[in-house]
C-alpha cells in the first residue's frame, strides 16, 4: 500500500460514476423525471373517493305531483349526473346487472298518499313511528359498495328533505287551523368546520400522498437495481478490487440515490404548489429534512434487497413485492387505524406510512417541528436497521 487516496476523493469518484451510470442514458434520465410528473397529475385527480356523476334509474309507478318533485330533486342534485326513466320492474335487473346505473329508485303506487299521511304529525302515543309500509325502494349495486354506501346517504338526504318539506307544507296549513308543529325545525344547529382544507378538496389530500408514493417507487427501484446490476454485469468485481471499503461502496450507492430523490422532490413540490394549487403552509426545510431521512430508509430497503438478489430481475421483483404492501399499509387508500391490530404494528415498519403523515402535515397543517420529528425518528430507526443489514449481507456474500 504505497499510495492511498483520501476517503472523500475515493467516495467522490464513486458518486460521480454512479450518477453518470444513472443519468448518462437519456432514456433513464427521462424515466426518472417525466413519467413520475405525469403520474402525479393523472393519479392526483384519479385517486378520489369523492362521489360524483352517479348514473341512476327511476321507476315511477306513482305518477303523482310528489313523485315528479322527488325525481326533479334527484336531477337537480350535483351527485347524480344521469337519471334514466324505466318503463317496468323487469328492467331493474338488466340495468343493474350491466352496470348501466349505480342505483334504482322505485317509487311505489302509494307514494304520494304515504307521503301526505306521514306529513301529518304522528301523536306521541304512536307505537311505531317509522314502520310505515315502504312505498319507496332504493336498490344499489354492491359491486361498488363503497360508492353505493356514500350515495345511499345522499339519496336518504334528498328523500327526507322532501318529507320535511311536505310536512312543512302541511304544518303551515294546519298551524293556521290551530295545532302546533313543534319539532319540525331542528333545535340544535350543527356547525361544521373543516380545518386545513375547508372545502374538503380531495386533491389536497392525494397530491402529498402521491408524491410520497412515487418517491418510494423510484427510490426502491433505483437502489434495488444498483448492486444487482453490477453483480450481473460483473462490474462489481472491479469495485471490490478497488481500495473502496464495503461501507464506502454502500455510501457511494446511497448518496447518488438521495441526490436523484431530492431533484425529483423539487419537481414534485413545485408542480404540486404551482400547477395543482395545493397550499404549502409548513416549513420547506422541515419537509426536506424528513424527506432526507425518508429517502435513507427507502434506500436502505432497496440496498438490502439488492444485496440479497443475484440478478436485476430478482431485485426488481423483490422491490415490487415490497412496494405493494408499503402502499397498502401506508394509510393512503384506507386509514391504518381501521386495520387489524397486528397489521398496524407491521405498518410501523413502513417508512411510507410515517412520511405520508409528515407530507400531508407539512403541506396542509403547518405541522410544528416537534411533531415532524416525532414522525421522523421511526424512519431513522428503519434506515439504521436496513442499511446495517444491507452492509452485513453484502459483506457475508463477499466472504463466501
Amino acid at each position: 500500500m504505497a499510495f492511498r487516496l483520501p476517503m472523500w476523493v475515493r467516495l467522490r469518484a464513486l458518486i460521480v460514476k454512479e450518477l453518470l451510470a444513472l443519468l448518462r442514458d437519456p432514456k433513464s434520465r427521462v424515466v426518472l423525471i417525466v413519467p413520475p410528473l405525469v403520474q402525479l397529475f393523472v393519479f392526483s385527480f384519479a385517486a378520489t373517493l369523492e362521489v360524483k356523476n352517479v348514473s341512476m334509474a327511476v321507476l315511477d309507478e306513482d305518477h303523482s305531483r310528489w313523485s315528479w318533485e322527488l325525481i326533479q330533486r334527484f336531477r337537480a342534485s350535483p351527485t347524480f349526473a344521469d337519471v334514466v326513466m324505466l318503463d317496468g320492474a323487469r328492467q331493474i335487473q338488466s340495468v343493474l346487472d350491466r352496470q348501466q346505473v349505480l342505483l334504482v329508485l322505485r317509487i311505489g303506487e302509494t307514494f304520494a298518499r304515504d307521503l301526505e299521511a306521514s306529513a301529518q304529525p304522528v301523536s306521541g302515543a304512536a307505537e311505531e313511528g317509522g314502520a310505515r309500509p315502504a312505498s319507496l325502494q332504493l336498490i344499489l349495486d354492491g359491486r361498488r359498495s363503497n360508492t353505493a354506501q356514500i350515495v345511499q346517504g345522499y339519496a336518504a338526504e334528498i328523500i327526507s328533505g322532501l318529507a320535511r318539506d311536505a310536512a312543512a307544507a302541511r304544518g303551515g296549513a294546519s298551524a293556521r287551523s290551530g295545532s302546533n308543529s313543534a319539532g319540525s325545525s331542528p333545535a340544535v344547529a350543527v356547525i361544521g368546520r373543516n380545518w386545513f382544507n375547508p372545502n374538503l378538496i380531495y386533491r389536497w389530500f392525494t397530491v402529498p400522498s402521491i408524491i410520497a408514493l412515487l418517491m418510494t417507487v423510484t427510490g426502491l427501484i433505483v437502489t434495488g437495481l444498483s448492486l444487482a446490476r453490477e453483480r450481473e454485469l460483473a462490474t462489481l468485481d472491479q469495485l471490490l478490487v478497488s481500495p473502496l471499503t464495503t461501507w464506502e461502496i454502500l455510501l457511494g450507492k446511497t448518496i447518488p440515490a438521495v441526490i436523484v430523490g431530492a431533484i425529483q422532490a423539487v419537481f414534485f413540490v413545485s408542480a404540486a404548489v404551482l400547477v395543482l394549487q395545493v397550499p404549502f403552509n409548513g416549513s420547506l426545510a422541515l419537509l426536506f429534512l424528513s424527506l432526507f431521512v425518508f429517502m435513507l430508509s427507502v434506500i436502505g430497503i432497496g440496498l438490502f434487497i439488492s444485496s440479497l438478489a443475484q440478478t436485476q430481475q430478482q431485485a426488481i421483483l423483490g422491490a415490487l413485492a415490497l412496494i405493494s404492501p408499503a402502499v397498502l399499509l401506508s394509510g393512503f387508500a384506507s386509514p391504518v387505524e381501521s386495520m387489524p391490530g397486528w397489521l398496524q404494528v407491521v405498518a410501523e415498519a413502513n417508512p411510507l406510512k410515517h412520511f405520508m403523515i409528515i407530507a400531508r402535515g407539512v403541506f396542509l397543517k403547518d405541522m410544528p417541528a416537534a411533531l415532524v420529528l416525532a414522525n421522523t425518528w421511526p424512519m431513522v430507526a428503519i434506515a439504521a436497521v436496513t442499511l446495517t443489514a444491507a452492509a452485513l449481507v453484502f459483506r457475508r456474500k463477499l466472504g463466501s
Partner: protein
Amino acid sequence: MQAASGMSAPASARTRFDPRRLAALFVKESHQVVRDPSSILIAFVLPAILLFLFGYAVSLDINRVRVAVVLEDDSPEAYSLASSFLGSSYFDVSIARDRRQVEEGLVSGELYGVIVVPQDFARRLLAAGRADSSDGVSGAPASVQVLTDGSQPNTAAFVQNYSQGAVTNWLQQRQLTRGAAMPADLAADTRVWYNPALHSRDFLVPGSIAVIMTITGTLLTALVVAREWERGTMEALMATPIGIFEILAGKLAPYFVLGMAAMTVCVIAAVQVFDVPLRGSIGALVAASAVFLLPALGQGLLISTLARNQFVAAQAAVISGFLPAFLLSGFIFDIASMPVPIQVVTHVVAARYFVTCLKTLFLVGDVWPLLLPNMAAMAAIGAVFLGITALRTKKRLD
C-alpha cells in the same frame, strides 16, 4: 446487432409457420421460467401476499373513528348528548373539558374530529323549547361545533355526517321521551344487491386479482425479454430461422401458463380463505382471464422491445402497468367520479375491463351483455400491443 444484420436466411424459410420450432422454443422458454426462482416468487408467493393484504389491510369501511367531545357546558343535556356519541359504534370518543387540550390532536393526526358543546348549549336548548311552546320568537338555536381534520377529506366528511346523525338521533330520542309530537320521517327501503352486507372485502378481493395479474403478466414479461435484449440472446434467437410471430408466441406461451396458474391460486384463495362468493361460471372466469392476459403480456413485450434495458423496462412496467391497474382501474377509486379527461385515459388501461369482469363474475354471475364488450376491449388493446411489438421487432431486423 452484428448477428441480426448478418442474417441471411431466406425470408420464405422464416415466415413459414412450423409447430416443431414453436414447441422447441416453448420448451426452452419454460425451462427458463421454471429454473428462475423469481418467476415462482412472482407467480405464487407475491399473489398470495398481496391477496392476503388486500383481504385484511384495505378496508373502506370506516369505523371507530377517533374523535373528542369537548364539554364546555356541564349541564345534564350536554352530558346526555355526549353519551349518545359515546354509544355510537362509529366513533371512538374521548371526553375533554377544554378545546385547547384536544385541538393539538387534530394537527398531530391523533384525532379526526372534535365536537364542541359550547357553554350556552343547555341554556339555548331550553330557551328554544320554552319559546316554542309559548309561541314566542326564539333566539339563536343551541349549536354544536364539529371541527374535523380536512387533510383527510373522506374521514372528515364521515365525521361531519355522522355527528349530524348523532345529534339528530339524540334530539329525536329526547322528543320521544318527552312525548312530543313529531312528524315521522320518510325513509326508503334500501337494498344492496350482489353484496347485501356491504363487505368491502367482497369487491376489493376480486378487484385486487386484476392488479396481481397485471404484475404477473406485464412486469415479468417486460423484465425477462428486456434481459434477453440486454444480453444479446434475443439477437441470437433472431438469427435462427424462427419467424417473428413464432418468437412472440413462444415468449408469450410460458407466461400465459404461469399467469393462468397464478389466477387459479388467486381464485381458490378468494373463495376459500376470504369467503368471497363466486356466482359466475368457471368457464367464463377462465375466458375473461385468458383474454386479459393478451394485453397484459403484450404490454410487457412491448415495453421490453422498446426499452431493451431492464432498468428502464422495470420503471416503465411499474409506471404504465402496476400503478394504473391500482389507481385507474376502478378497483378502489370509482371511475365515474374522476374528471372526464382521466376517464378517457382509463379506457386504455386493460385492467379496467378486467376489474369489471371480475367483480361481475364473483358477485353477480355470467352477465354476458356486460362481459363481452369488456372482453372485446381487452382483446383490442392486446392486439394493438402485440401488433406494435411485431412491427418494432421487424424494423430492427432490417
